[in-house]
């Protein structure tokens, strides 16, 4: 009976462990579940940016047109096994590309709707000096599209997750694909067999 009671008391102690919070650097890599996380998003964005800026499509365009190319973000489809917020790494890419000074970004179709509404409102309510007219938008020269795919191989509690991110830059003038970016990530996820 003593053993029986000791076991119950030990269980109570184990069950009573509480929550702990530790603040950390945003660049620190922590893999908890094995799912796509901020580190994956950052790594993909960094690799894609380095690649897209090192390719000849920019210099070719500038020498031909005499100005920096305007790019619009189209759809980036999530075809993976996880609900991935693709907006975070698209935003990372947009920021780095704009900050490089070599590319201009124009608002996406959803953003444009809101801006046009605001412009209509300005037309009615803003002073003539500050009002922005319709019909002066910059048309995009290229559209960035892409997809995230995964292959998951499962054996019991072990999984190999293979992510492949493909981005394509397409010329709006003639549908030419001027850049193809690809990043692959492979993870071995071993799920716990025992918990406390």
């Amino acid at each position, binding site marked *: *009976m003593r053993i*029986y009671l000791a*076991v*119950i008391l*030990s*269980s109570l102690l*184990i*069950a009573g462990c509480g929550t702990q919070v530790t603040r950390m650097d945003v660049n620190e890599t922590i893999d908890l579940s094995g799912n796509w996380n901020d580190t994956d998003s950052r790594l993909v964005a960094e690799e894609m940016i380095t690649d897209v800026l090192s390719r000849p499509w920019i210099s070719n365009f500038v020498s031909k047109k005499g100005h920096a190319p305007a790019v619009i973000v189209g759809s980036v*489809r*999530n*075809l*993976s*096994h*996880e*609900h991935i917020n693709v907006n975070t790494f698209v935003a990372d890419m947009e920021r780095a590309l704009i900050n490089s000074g070599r590319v201009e970004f124009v608002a996406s179709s959803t953003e444009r709707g809101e801006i046009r509404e605001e412009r209509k409102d300005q037309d009615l309510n803003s002073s003539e000096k500050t009002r922005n007219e319709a019909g002066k938008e910059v048309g995009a020269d290229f559209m960035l599209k892409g997809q995230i795919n*995964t292959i*998951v191989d*499962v054996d*019991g*509690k072990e*999984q190999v997750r293979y992510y492949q991110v493909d981005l394509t830059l397409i010329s709006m003038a003639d549908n030419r694909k001027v850049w193809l970016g690809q990043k692959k990530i492979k993870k071995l996820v071993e*799920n*716990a*067999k*025992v*918990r*406390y």
Partner: protein
Amino acid sequence: MHQTEVNSLAEGLEGLGAEKTLLALQEIDASDRDRAQYLLNVGLLKSIRGNFSDANKDLQLAKEILNALQAVSVSESVWATTINETLTSYDGSASERVLLHELMSINYLMQNDLDAARVEVLQASVVMDELASASGPSGQLASSHYIAGLVYELGGELDDAMISYRKAEKIMTVRNIHLPAALKYSLLNLSRDLGLDADYKKYNQRFNMVATTLPPDSAEIIVIYWDGIVTSKREKSLSVWVPSLEQVVSLAVPTYPESDYVKRPLNVNFDGKHYITQTLEDIEALAREDLADNFAQIYTMTLARMVAKAEMVKQANGQNSSLGLLMNLATLLTESADIRSWNMLPSTIQVSRFLVPTGKYPLPVNNFVTSTSEKTEFTARAGDKIVLFISSASRRTFYSYF
């Protein structure tokens, strides 16, 4: 006590309706251990009353809990072997883990979010791969593969759709369930569209059907119908002679009573023609199959626990008869079977797929529509694929265009 209330609510769901059942369920104070079961039922009730986005938030939480609980808990195992199994966290049966993804896919389809529905379909496939065994089809669901096929087909991924429809066919054949016409239709049409001539010929001969070509002024309707409410588990007492104790001990184990569910196909009328849904998944059978698969483990643990408790009573009796009496009482009061399950699931999942001429059609089932702002009809345009989701428990029709 809590579980008895949840079981009563599940049993009365069709009479009370999803709205009132949800309110009553939210009144019950579920413990952390029962949180996943609570979220599964809440998510399901929200789904069948059309709150698809909210439903998926609850189901996502349930999914995260169930995933975390797949590892064996040391402390909970101790509770289960010393007191009873209801003191462990509810981690869902094999079929329930797959059905969770299936319901989430349907909810995303109803929100017209094909990519998110595709994510759930892929996750269901991973879970089914984890559960796959050579000994039988446990944890393999034809309805999940069918929904996967539908999601791929709606997204134009015909190769993947064909693979999923084939898997659905294979599982139904293994389980000895007649293939619904909707699945035959998909297998025939896709094998033709993909140029799989040998497959087409095989299906054509086996089903005695030909592929259908969509006439220019028509749309396709796909009906997913949830019928009935799956039976809840009950507690059953077993008396077992234990030679080491030289006495009979009484074990409380979970069981499914005989089902009184009678299949009720949904008969829908479009343009003067009747279309009847057919069974794609028998959840009554799956629930019993899951319990049977786990019964040996449940029985062994229950027997070990009862032997330990009987030993303890014997020792207490030897020290003091009052203490022995007290221990015996405690043993009896603490012994109960784990009768938790996702018990608001339907008894069967049924499907139907057919062509209708373009035009306006009344929603086939809309008994509980109370607000005048709610739509009572929908428009079928040329080339549309319209997915209808209907549950006998909510008696409402929800639809989405593709």
